[in-house]
């Protein structure tokens, strides 16, 4: 009688699959899937859960707030929002083990909010455990909150399932809706390499959805350096060459009705050395279509050129202000141009590229070009 090899093989496969799965299996109905979390400077412990506080290693420094939906149909609240004070972010998971009845799937989280005060102290030590933990995706979106992240996560919103999903939608692809970057854990990390500095979108309480994108936070490595309003944000995004799109208003001298142009942006940078001075030639290119021109005079080549020149002048003026502030006040390359110098003289420049003098003494020549390619369905 021939040996039943297929049966044996099948049995072997089944045994193998079960053997490996036993240790790592988790029931889905016992899992908690966080959507958003925030890290803030430790404030207080209203839930009195910080009973482990005995000694310097237990002294809370950071408040970790997490939002996760309640999967039970009988639960009154849509989400659970919980704040855990802890000495480190990783150690906070230990405390959560005592307060949360479900297994917490850190890797499922989508958004991390950093409180303003914590960002001023430096974020890397708080984010390190996320980079180290294999379960965590480097796709998590990061944003800075004007104020405390905890306060944002504890807000109710009527226009979305919960505050977590609203925040995720808000920070996921803002560059498709305006001049605002989406920044992930990965980008925040690589922007801390020599010659780079990170930026983060800023979130503020207010507006119809309770929260809105209020500008851009500029960092010197992992420490918050400055907060920009939306107009400054647009300039920085253009200077930094972050691919995005949005509207620019214009008004020609002989027209009293302003119009608008929808543009996409691009950036080119060239660098050369003139003696001890590094000369950066930054070219910002805006390509777009006229979306609004209620003036009576029809658009012709001459008027089209005037609109292009108007927008170019406005953008150049705004961008120049950012460059001046960057070189004289921040003394930090937040427009990401130092990397082009590194690409030519890396060995020589790498040790000094992040010194304040490098970007302060650099000569930055800006040119803005606007190219209107279409006028829409009207002339």
């Amino acid at each position, binding site marked *: 009688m021939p040996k039943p090899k297929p049966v044996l093989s099948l049995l*072997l496969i089944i045994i*193998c699959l079960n*053997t*490996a799965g*036993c*240790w*790592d299996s988790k029931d889905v109905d016992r899992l908690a899937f966080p959507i958003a979390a925030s890290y803030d400077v430790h404030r207080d412990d209203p839930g009195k859960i910080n009973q482990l506080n005995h000694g310097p290693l237990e002294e809370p420094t950071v408040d970790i707030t997490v939002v996760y939906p309640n999967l039970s149909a009988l639960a009154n609240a849509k989400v659970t929002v919980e704040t855990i004070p802890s000495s480190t972010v990783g150690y906070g998971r230990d405390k959560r083990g005592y307060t949360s009845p479900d297994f917490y799937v850190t*890797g499922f989280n989508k958004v991390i909010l950093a409180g303003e005060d914590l960002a001023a102290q430096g974020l890397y030590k708080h984010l390190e455990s996320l980079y180290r933990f*294999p379960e965590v*995706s*480097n*796709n998590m979106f990061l944003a800075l909150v004007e104020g405390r992240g905890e306060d944002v996560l504890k807000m109710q919103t009527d226009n979305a399932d919960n505050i977590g999903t609203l925040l995720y939608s808000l920070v996921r692809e803002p560059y498709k809706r305006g001049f605002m970057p989406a920044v*992930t854990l*990965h*980008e925040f*990390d*690589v922007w*801390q*390499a*020599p010659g780079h500095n990170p930026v983060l979108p800023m979130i503020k309480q207010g507006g119809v959805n309770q929260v809105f994108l209020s500008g851009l936070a500029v960092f010197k490595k992992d420490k918050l350096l400055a907060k920009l309003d939306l107009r400054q944000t647009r300039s920085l995004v253009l200077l930094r060459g972050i691919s995005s799109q949005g509207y620019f208003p214009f008004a020609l001298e002989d027209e009293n009705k302003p119009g608008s142009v929808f543009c996409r942006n691009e950036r080119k940078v060239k660098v050369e050395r003139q003696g001890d001075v590094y000369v950066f030639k930054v070219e910002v290119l805006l390509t777009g279509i006229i979306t609004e021109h209620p003036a009576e005079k029809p658009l012709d080549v001459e008027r089209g050129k005037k609109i292009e020149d108007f927008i170019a002048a406005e953008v150049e003026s705004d961008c120049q202000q950012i460059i001046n502030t960057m070189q004289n006040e921040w003394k930090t390359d937040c427009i990401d141009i130092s*990397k*082009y110098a*590194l*690409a*030519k*003289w*890396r*060995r020589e420049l790498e040790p000094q590229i992040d010194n304040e003098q490098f970007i302060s003494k650099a000569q930055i020549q800006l040119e803005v070009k606007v190219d209107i390619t279409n006028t829409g369905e009207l002339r």
Partner: protein
Amino acid sequence: MSRMHQINSRQLMFILTGGQVGTAMLALPALLGKAAGQHAWVCILLGALVPLINLLVIENLGKRHLGSNMVQMFQALMGKVAGTICILVFAFYLIGATTVLLGVFARLIQLFLLPKTPLWVVVLLAMMCVIYAVSKGGRVVGRLNETLFFGLVLSMFFIVIPVYYSHDLTNLLPLGELDVGELLRGAFYTITTFAGAEILLVLYSQVDKPEEVKVAAMNALGLSVATYLIVAICCLLVFGAERMARFTWPGVTILKIAHVPVIERFEFYFLAIWVGIVLRRVINPSFAAALTLVQLFNMEERYNLLVLFLGVVVFVGAQFSPNTMGNQIIWNYFAISYLSIGFTFPLVLLLISLLRKGTVKANAKA
């Protein structure tokens, strides 16, 4: 020569590539980034010279001793006693290599996929597959390598996709500013990853058309180099040398940045494919070790028993594999072992062969 172990040159090519491309590929970019910065990829080209010479030496040796298997060649050139000792050292080296590679593979799987599953379970599951494949002989090992190679091609697509989402060309620049010391240090790290070429010494006598061995071996090395280059360049583009050096497995971490809809977690799919691919790296030296010992002790009929015994030895050895922090030390020893055994033995044999010329055949007959 048993037909059970006979392979064609195409299969040889895939076995040699399979013997070189393994788990180390996923860690290599970090080591190279630390050693040579943006020139990490140059180290791979430089490091490939070692297996290139290794393969050419073995091919030349095999051509000069057509019809002799590795054991006969060793004993003919070095004498019975010295030859036997060298063969045993070579076989132990292959078993050691298998153990190290399996241990590293199991740690990687534990880290990313099965964190709570005990190491012995992961190793046992892997060894069951390895023992089964090797017990079926060279032809099956050849076909397995041939089939699983396409998994490697697929996994390369996975590695390239994150570059679309995030890359910076300046991370590769400047191309100049080369430092010989840095490049050599980086090239040394690549030696560990390129180790595996030496199994040609065992396989040469099993190839049906020896005249095609040279082309197959060169193609195999080309495929391995291309694979390593793709991984290193992609990691450089995405992370840059400075950030890349901080990761333990940049070849896996790179997958965590892709925003592919529906799939979401790219690295888990990659690792599922990778499990199959990387087992070749364990199967091939295991097969080479088993074949060497079978030829040495002339125990063809007990081949399966020997394979099982080797499997148990490797299983036990892999339990003592170091943690991630100890990997670097083990890999350095592995590189030195490859240079002193896998690389040097064939070279010494070729030199003896060149010096003794006509006397070899007489010795072989004796």
